């Protein structure tokens, strides 16, 4: 669905260099702290920026070759950009009806009711949560084969986040589609994504399936006196703390067998962000 090969984008103070692939009918999450290159990657996929070098292909075409008909198969919700705040949801319905041949107006209206979105109020009077709901609803209302969701839960309270994630999960369950979703709140993506990419400082630090993260990776606290005796090939990353080192280990079963005196906990995505990308600001 999406192939990114040796993509490089240089800004004055930032360098992004990645290769990744989003297969058909998979939900892929990009996680990482703010400023790690998630939104730049999304912009590259949507053809909004030009690569310094490398290529980005969507539906087998270079992004600059994508025609409006191809873009009809993409549903995008961007973190900091949407329809003009002068418009109402009713206006947006009229625009989407004219733009997408497969626009599902009854679904859109039904979801507006479910998500308590007023139809005749201008977007400028919407709360942050309501605006995000409109963005996500716009992305999923025209039977898109590729959903691109940039930080769809950013700035929302727990209730609104749960509602958004549920809406996305429902869409994925009932449609053949690929999804690329970014977030710096990893718990939002747990249980939703098949694969994860962990970004830090404009690079990919880790690419794993959700299953593998739980099965393979673990965290362990190693006291200073034991640290030198540890097999470093089992350790992905370490962070010095007051008691010793907090480490991510990449084969928790082997580690537990070799060092039974150390307690290994299964790693979650937050542990990986903190310890693998921990030195990033």
């Amino acid at each position, binding site marked *: 669905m999406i192939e990114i090969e040796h993509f490089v984008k240089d800004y004055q103070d930032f360098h992004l260099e990645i290769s990744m692939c989003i297969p058909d009918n998979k939900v892929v999450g990009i996680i990482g702290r703010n400023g790690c290159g998630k939104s730049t990657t999304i*912009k590259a996929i*949507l*053809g*909004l*920026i*030009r690569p310094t070098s490398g290529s980005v292909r969507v539906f087998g075409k270079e992004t600059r070759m994508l*025609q*409006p*008909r191809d*873009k*009809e198969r*993409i549903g*995008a919700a*961007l973190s*900091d*950009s*949407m*329809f*003009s*705040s*002068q*418009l*109402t949801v009713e*206006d947006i319905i*009229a*625009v*989407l009806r*004219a*733009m*997408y041949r497969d626009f599902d107006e009854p679904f859109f209206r039904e979801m507006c009711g479910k998500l308590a979105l007023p139809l005749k109020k*201008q977007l400028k009077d919407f709360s942050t949560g309501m605006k995000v709901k409109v963005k996500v609803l716009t992305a999923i209302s025209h039977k898109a084969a590729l959903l*691109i969701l940039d930080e769809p839960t950013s700035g929302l309270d727990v209730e609104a986040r749960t509602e958004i994630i549920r809406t996305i999960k429902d869409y994925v369950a009932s449609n053949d589609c690929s999804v690329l979703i970014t977030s710096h709140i990893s718990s939002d993506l747990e249980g939703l994504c098949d694969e994860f990419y962990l970004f830090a400082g404009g690079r990919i630090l880790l690419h794993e399936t959700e299953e593998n993260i739980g099965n393979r990776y673990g965290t362990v606290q190693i006291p200073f006196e034991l640290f030198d005796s540890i097999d470093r090939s089992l350790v992905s990353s370490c962070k010095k703390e007051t008691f010793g080192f907090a480490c991510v280990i990449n084969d928790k079963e082997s580690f537990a067998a070799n060092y039974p005196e150390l307690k290994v906990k299964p790693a979650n995505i937050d542990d990986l962000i903190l310890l693998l990308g921990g030195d990033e600001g």
Partner: protein
Amino acid sequence: MKGLLIKDLRIVFRRKQHLLILLGFFALIAFTADGSFIIGYAAGLTGIMGLSTLAFDEQDNGFPFLFSLPVDVKTYVNEKYLFCILLDIVGAAVGTALFALACVTKGSMEMLPDGIVYLALYLPATLLLILSILPVQMMFGREKSRIITMIVYGILFVVSALIVKLVGPVDRIKAPRNLPDWLANPFFLAACVLALLFAGCLAMYFICLKVMKNKEY
């Protein structure tokens, strides 16, 4: 294109209060000021409303989302041109209608034919004005383009004033005696002006297209 036109029309009509005030202002000018000033004024201001939709697209960083929709840069530029031209024509039509109404109510029916002449003069002039601002706004954004447009038109005004001061008013300039008849023909001159106008608009269109294609969002 249809979706973008609907979006822009809805943005314009969402500002109902603004539209009503503008219409009232046009009526006031038509019934109090002499002459056909209202035709050019209404055309110009309505055309500028078309430009304001570009500012609304730009507001709150709207371009990235807009270009994630099934819209390419060429369609966007074409739509903006079409929308501004349509609004300019609508403004000129409203201005002409108000001018005619004012003539009828004031009993100065003899001025009515002048309205057609003024319409023929003002419509291309205001179109050129609007379509010259469009690429500047696309290139520099709303805030910077205001300053640049003011500076450029200020310079043009000063240069024109200097020329008039140097060579005298246009109606007192005598054509050289040895000019061939076809060159002094007013229809030929009007055709030349229109051709230049068309060429200018076309050049601005290609500038717009290039500016928008080269931009990153």
